[in-house]
């Protein structure tokens, strides 16, 4: 909890938004929204997927032109027409999709447009030194000269945050900064945020993790369907009320009970890997996936979870070991092979590896199914519509318009459509890398329920998540990774947050130690 000596509402207001309205064609993304951010306040902006949070942010920073409304910064009306204007006015933003430049070095990304120069020449060494020091504050000790693309999403996200924070703005806006971070990084981020708030900077924080909201925020503002539902002090707002504000209905809290774990051996082995691995990528591992069973992969950033998933799906070719399906050895050299065997894979990097932005939601949903059926058996338009509508309803994708280009959907809804893409193929094995990233509380519960249902129908699941609670909730077994090797397998009652943490941190300092 941040410093609460002054009642939050009494703080001098820094950013005042009145009557903000924005539509995209017929879709009203924001209607008459008011929002006030005080000095030194951390203010959560909440709402379901597609509620308009990101749109609000983009309108404020001038990425989208607003239709109506006023924005005042420290009393002066501002009307930025591009992100550049907003930065100059003192609003620094981390947008939801990591918007950095994968081809540039980490250091260039941090200092683009404001590199230290002498006689017009960028002082490379000085810039790298500063960048390195800056990232150390966030617990990253990396080669800042390497291209950003060579680092994981989490590192990219931290880089984006560090850049925004370092702009020394008056207002800092963070759109789901924690979606791909694990506890350790989140701790570090919160420490930084608290320090900034203490310096009087106002912070807008968007997140779907309510625990985090309760941990760090002073006030919350909730949007629903583009309308303002209300602004509350967090201390006066019980969790269930907050959820009701967001969803407009009650949420059956099912999220925190453990999956019934049957003895492993009772289930039929569906896919198994022996000595599977690739040099310099992931050490050889054995892994058995059974029908109806969820296996969780846990580990720190960079421990090799995504790499394991890519190997299992053939996106990276293994150079040792073998894979077998129902006891028969199979070839697994490409995603196409994997899809042919009935595997599915939702990658972690939604924008670059997941969606085909130009295509419609319908086309994105039927893509994998169509690829598997081959060219000669095209799905008729009617079949496509049927499939698309079935999953749009099942996963509550909004707006429920199958003909919308998927790139125009909100982040969480894109994630749901990707899940639908694989569900439509009725896979035998589904690999999910951070499946609930950016998904709102309501949908989160839905997806967890869905995962369970799928298992009941005999699907094998391999799930990667940075949220240990989530892993514990639905996993029958958890494989713990460290340094690109599978180090431990927990099953039955051993599947607990504390034992996973213990396995992860076997020879590393705990988060608290690093944070202190």
């Amino acid at each position, binding site marked *: 909890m941040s410093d609460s000596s002054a009642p939050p509402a009494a703080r001098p207001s820094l950013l005042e938004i009145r009557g903000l309205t924005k539509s995209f064609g017929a879709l009203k993304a924001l209607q008459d929204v008011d929002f006030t951010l005080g000095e030194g306040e951390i203010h959560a902006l909440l709402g379901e997927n597609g509620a308009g949070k990101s749109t609000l942010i983009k309108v404020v920073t001038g990425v989208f032109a607003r239709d109506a409304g006023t924005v005042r910064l420290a009393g002066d009306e501002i009307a930025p027409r*591009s992100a550049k204007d907003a930065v100059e006015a003192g609003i620094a933003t981390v947008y939801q999709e990591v918007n950095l430049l994968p*081809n540039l070095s980490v250091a*260039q990304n941090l200092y*683009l447009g404001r590199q230290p120069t002498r006689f017009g020449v960028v002082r490379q060494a000085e810039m790298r030194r500063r960048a390195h020091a800056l990232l150390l504050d966030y617990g990253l000790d990396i080669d800042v000269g390497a291209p950003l693309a060579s680092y994981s999403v989490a590192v990219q996200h931290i880089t984006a945050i560090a850049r925004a924070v370092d702009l020394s703005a008056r207002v800092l806006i963070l759109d789901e900064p924690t979606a791909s971070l694990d506890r350790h990084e989140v701790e570090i981020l919160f420490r930084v945020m608290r320090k900034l708030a203490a310096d009087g900077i106002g912070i807008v924080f968007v997140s779907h993790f309510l625990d985090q909201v309760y941990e760090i925020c002073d006030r919350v503002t909730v949007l629903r369907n583009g309308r303002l539902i209300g602004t509350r002090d967090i201390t006066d707002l019980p969790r269930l009320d907050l959820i009701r504000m967001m969803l407009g209905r009650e949420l059956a809290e099912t999220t925190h009970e453990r999956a019934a774990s049957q003895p492993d051996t009772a289930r039929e082995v569906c896919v198994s890997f022996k000595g599977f691995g690739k040099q310099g990528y992931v050490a050889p591992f054995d892994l058995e996936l059974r029908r109806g069973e969820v296996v969780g992969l846990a580990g720190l950033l960079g421990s090799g979870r995504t790499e394991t998933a890519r190997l299992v799906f053939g996106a990276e070719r293994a150079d040792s070991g073998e894979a077998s399906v129902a006891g028969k050895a199979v070839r697994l050299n490409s995603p196409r092979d994997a899809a042919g065997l009935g595997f599915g894979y939702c990658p972690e990097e939604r924008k670059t590896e997941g969606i085909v932005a130009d295509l419609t939601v319908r086309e994105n949903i039927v893509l994998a199914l169509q690829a598997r059926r081959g060219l000669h058996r095209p799905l008729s338009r009617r079949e496509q519509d049927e499939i698309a509508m079935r999953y749009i309803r099942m996963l509550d994708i909004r707006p429920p318009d199958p003909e919308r280009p998927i790139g125009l959907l909100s982040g969480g809804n894109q994630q749901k459509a990707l899940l639908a893409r694989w569900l439509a193929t009725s896979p035998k094995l589904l690999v999910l890398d951070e499946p609930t990233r950016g998904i709102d509380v309501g949908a989160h519960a839905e997806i967890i329920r869905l995962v369970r249902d799928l298992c009941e129908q005999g699907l094998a699941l391999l799930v990667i998540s940075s949220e240990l609670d989530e892993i514990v909730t639905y996993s029958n077994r958890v494989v713990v990774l460290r*340094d690109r090797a599978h180090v431990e397998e927990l099953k039955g009652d051993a599947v607990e947050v504390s034992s996973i943490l213990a396995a992860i941190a076997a020879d*590393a300092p705990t988060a608290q130690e690093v944070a202190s």
Partner: protein
Amino acid sequence: MKASTSVAITAAVLVAGFALCALQFPNIASTRVVANLLTDNAFLGIVAAGMTFVIISGGIDLSVGSVIGFTTVFVALAVERWGIPPFAAFALVLVLCALFGAAMGAVIHVFDLPPFIVTLAGMFLARGISFLLSTESIPITAPIYSAVSDFAIRLPGGGRLTAIAIAMLAILVLSALLLHLTRFGANVYALGGSRTATALMGIPVGSMTIRIYMLSSVLAGLAGIVFSFYTAAGYSLSAVGVELDTIAAVVIGGTLLTGGQGSVIGTFLGVLIQGMIQTYINFDGTLSSWWTKIATGVLLFVFIALQQGLMALARRSSVKPAGVKPVGVST
């Protein structure tokens, strides 16, 4: 893979090619041929430098050949018919080129149109204007022209490092500095990485676009001036098709057409590789028109395949660890 590796590989391919050619025609390994290579490709090197910026930023500029043609005609007319002193004519034509490039950049940015087509229209326009100016080739007799073309640093072995070759080398060095060492250069790479992200990071994308195409057109104008020194004439049909040679040189030099990666040094190597191919064919001298074309294609393929192969080898030998380790985790 690192940019320096790709440049090193291209350089290795060039040296190997040169050695093979010299083995067959020992005359090739002389300062004379090497100096000729620089002189003959001076204008190409200069436009290619500009094109490197454009391509790295994710665009393309098809108008450069026509801009060269326009420049030669304009300079020739200005000096010979309108009585403008040569240096004033150069300044004037460069200003015109800058305006032309800025206009293309502005259209691309403001109307969100593909650079390929906008600059294609620019190509028609510049060539069309040169036709209007004059369809005949106009010799330039100003004294500065013969003075410059007579100037050369004599190298041992009969080579002559001419003024225009020196000009190209200077421009390449300056371009390399601009691209690799300044904020402007970093922004060029940024644009090629992602326009949206660059805009969201607060870089003025519009003015960058305008400046990049301006730079390309100005360098094309400079190349045109160099071309006019090279031939001491202005001709509306000069440098037809040079845009493709330029793009090929840039791409062979390791610059990605999708933007975001590349270097001026690589481009220079690409220009030399193309020059090599032509020199080899000229030395051979037995080829009919069609075998010349086929041989050019085959050699181009051999160079690219070699480069690609070496690149794949280099990638294989340096498997990158993709992840990071948080502070405190020791190995």
